[in-house]
């Protein structure tokens, strides 16, 4: 009787991922980022100064609130201003088209900082006029000037987004609505805009993120937003920590908004998923 021996079942050695050049470079870069991250954490711990934190952190958080106010107000007012501009951009009327194009080209082609200076310091030259029309209270204040400029600026971008999204709706949609006898405005409201706004959703999200970043410019005309409070605190302490706090807060704001927008987009386009 012969004995049956099981075939040897030695598991072949796992080969693992080879150490290619790309992997070495990648690992080194990750180590570099980790070192930088640890360095920042170490800086925050080693220079931990409860007095400074107690003094400046609340101000920084107040700055976050001001930044949020500026962003929300300018994006909302910008959306309102963008409506007539978008209509002009889409209009067949050459005069309206040229005016809307000039507006949009001016605000998109010049630096926001220069625009802000133009409004804030430029308004100061016409004190008499603004006092006469009762708007001086508005233009005297850097905060309002910043919101005013940002709203005009973002309106130009939002108008392009909206006009582009409306153009992207296939013309068959207009024709079908015409064939059903829908009035133009109803067609726009019930047929075109719901489709266009879905296309526009992502660019709008990017625009809000750009606005969060751009709002830091308000600090240059003395508005005490997050950046303004940071600059003020840095000028008193000369402690780089404060800039690192601000950087972390800005990154969190932008990341949160980006994630929120992803969720929003998935939710609003769930009927388009196949």
């Amino acid at each position: 009787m012969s004995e049956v021996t099981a075939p040897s079942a030695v598991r072949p050695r796992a080969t693992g991922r080879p150490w290619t050049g790309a992997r070495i470079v990648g690992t080194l870069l990750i180590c570099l980022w980790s070192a930088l991250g640890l360095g920042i954490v170490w800086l925050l711990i080693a220079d931990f100064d409860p007095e400074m934190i107690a003094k400046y952190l609340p101000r920084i958080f107040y700055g976050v609130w001001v930044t949020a106010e500026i962003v929300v107000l300018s994006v909302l007012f910008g959306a309102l201003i963008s409506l007539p501009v978008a209509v002009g951009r889409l209009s067949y009327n050459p005069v309206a088209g040229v005016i809307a194009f000039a507006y949009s080209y001016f605000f998109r082609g010049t630096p926001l900082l220069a625009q802000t200076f133009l409004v804030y310091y430029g308004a100061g030259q016409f004190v008499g006029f603004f006092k006469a029309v009762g708007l001086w209270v508005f233009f005297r204040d850097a905060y309002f000037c910043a919101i005013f400029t940002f709203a005009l600026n973002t309106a130009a971008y939002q108008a392009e987004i909206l006009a582009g999204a409306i153009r992207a709706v296939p013309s068959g949609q207009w024709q079908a609505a015409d064939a059903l006898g829908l009035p133009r405005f109803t067609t726009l409201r019930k047929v075109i805009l719901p489709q266009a706004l879905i296309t526009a959703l992502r660019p709008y999200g990017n625009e809000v993120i750009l606005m969060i970043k751009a709002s830091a410019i308000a600090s240059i005309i003395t508005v005490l937003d997050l950046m303004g409070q940071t600059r003020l605190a840095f000028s008193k302490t000369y402690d780089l920590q404060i800039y690192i706090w601000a950087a972390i807060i800005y990154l969190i704001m932008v990341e949160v908004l980006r994630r929120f927008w992803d969720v929003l987009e998935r939710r609003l386009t769930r009927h388009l998923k196949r």
Partner: protein
Amino acid sequence: MVEYLNLLSFGSEGWGDELGLGVLVTVTLAACTLPVGLTLGFFIALAKNSSEPTLRSAANIYTTIFRGLPELLTLFLIYYGGQMALTALAMLLFGEGVNVNSFVAGIFALALVFSSYASEVFLSAFKGITLGQYEGAYALGLSHFSTMRLVILPQLIRLALPGLSNLWLNLLKDTSLVSVIGLADLLRNTNIAVGVTKQAFFFFLLACLIYLVLSIISSLGLGRISAWAERGQGGH
């Protein structure tokens, strides 16, 4: 009218020469940043396009940070952080401090921002090149490097050009931020002119119009480059 023209005359009375110099500094800054940003952006796009996960995450961390931070904050971090780090280093080595040049700090900060956006543009251009292009090149016996140089890069430039054009226009506008750390660019010289003459509206409007002219000239030039890049596409 004559009063305004006098303000713009060249020489000790007017501000024409100061503004002209400012334009020169603005354009030089943007032109110096461009090659740095493009090169950096290209390599980051390569990393993001790589099959190696560590390389991809390292590149993604980079873009998340520099696309998320306000340009102004990046600039301050580089300027003051660089100042502190270099001073500490110079103290250790030579026993005396150094000053960080605002022009160099500007190039660094703007290149960081530019490259992180450029990497996204390059990445989507990479995605527009089909695998067959690589396979064909390898089948012909081209090396990795030659494939990149002779086959992929020429197509990449054409696909990336529209996005890069936008980034160049943004870069031109972002240079104005460097005026805040004291670089004598167009906006800073305009500020000085306003401080002396008190003609804020006139001078800032003029500065805006000069920026506008710069971007119109850029658009014309970019149109030419785009026509060159599309020359093999059977268009007109």
